[in-house]
């Protein structure tokens, strides 16, 4: 039986698992924004995040038949996103792309996600502070504070023990405090 989170549609997941391409497309439409948001917060680059999102859904398409419903679908998706982000962050391209990100974001052709009207001043400061965290602390912070994952879920999604997941959340909070208070 699939574990269900509010807003999730297990029947769509089940249809997609059975090979229904329309159902898979519906899953992409449902989750592309969340995956893109996670990826952007984890890799700090819009173009890398787009590539991550492509890779995530390609892996989901290939691996959906193996999804056993032992986690929420969105938690699995979060885990796959983390795996893809870790992979892309190891690539030489990521090194240069992340370093170039401020100019990329300032380019007129690319919308700056930090400039959207809906973003408050404090979330802008948080967005900037998040970029200064190491990837593993970003993963822990996003999983716990944005996705509301339990520590068990966070541990599973990030390939850590529960005690290590707690440690990472704690350190992320401490580091964010230091960064935000220094400004």
């Amino acid at each position, binding site marked *: 039986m699939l574990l269900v989170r509010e807003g999730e549609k297990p029947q769509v997941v089940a249809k997609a698992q059975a090979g229904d391409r329309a159902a898979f497309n519906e899953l992409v439409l449902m989750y592309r924004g969340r995956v893109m948001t996670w990826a952007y917060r984890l890799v700090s680059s819009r173009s890398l995040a787009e590539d991550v999102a492509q890779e995530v859904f390609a892996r989901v*398409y290939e691996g959906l038949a193996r999804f056993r419903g032992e986690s929420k679908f969105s938690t699995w998706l979060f885990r796959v996103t983390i795996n893809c982000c870790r992979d892309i962050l190891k690539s030489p391209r990521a090194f240069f792309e992340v370093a170039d990100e401020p100019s990329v974001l300032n380019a007129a052709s690319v919308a700056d996600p930090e400039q*959207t009207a809906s973003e408050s001043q404090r979330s802008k400061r948080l967005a900037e502070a998040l970029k200064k965290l190491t990837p593993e602390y970003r993963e822990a912070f996003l999983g716990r504070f*944005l996705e509301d994952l339990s520590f068990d879920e966070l541990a599973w999604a990030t390939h850590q023990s529960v005690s290590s997941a707690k*440690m990472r959340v704690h350190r992320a909070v401490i580091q964010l405090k230091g960064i935000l208070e220094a400004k």
Partner: protein
Amino acid sequence: MKAEERTARITRFLLNEMPADERRAFLKELERDASLAEEMEFARTLMASARELPALEPGPEFLGSLSLRLARDAQKEQTRTRRFGYPAFGLVSAAAAACIAVVLWMKPGDRADSPVTTTFQVDAPNAGSVELVGDFNLWTAGKTRMVREANASVWKASVQLPPGRHYFQYVVDGKRIPDPSLPSVDDDFGGEDSYVDVTEDRP
């Protein structure tokens, strides 16, 4: 209490994960402990800020690019299956009590897309029960039980599989294990899945 446990409790409180008794005790603690209250306020602000982070959407070309990517992947997969589709009879011994597995394709179908009778065999001499789970039975335990032959240690099950790649695991006394004789992949769930490429024609 360790610092990380304090933070963990604060986030559990904020996310309503505490049972009522613990929540009441935590509220009393907050009244007595100013530093805990301060940490709590900071975490509350962080959580509110995190929820205000704007959601992003991929660009308009995303769906088209994804469709092309999936079509390309499917084409590569077909080519790969044609070239390597009929793996050799596998017979690999694992340590001590372990499993020796053989996957055998018995009877090709009449049409290119017709199911192929595929027999899975695993040597598990000390097992009390063995099942087969995979994408073909939606990984559901209890659907494909393997049967041990009299006075033998080998468990067998035959299933009808359409040509293509299929992922599976054995469930030996409730524990999921991959087939040691076949290739496997990280299953994105913390374990490994074996896979077989079923083709309807022998090379």
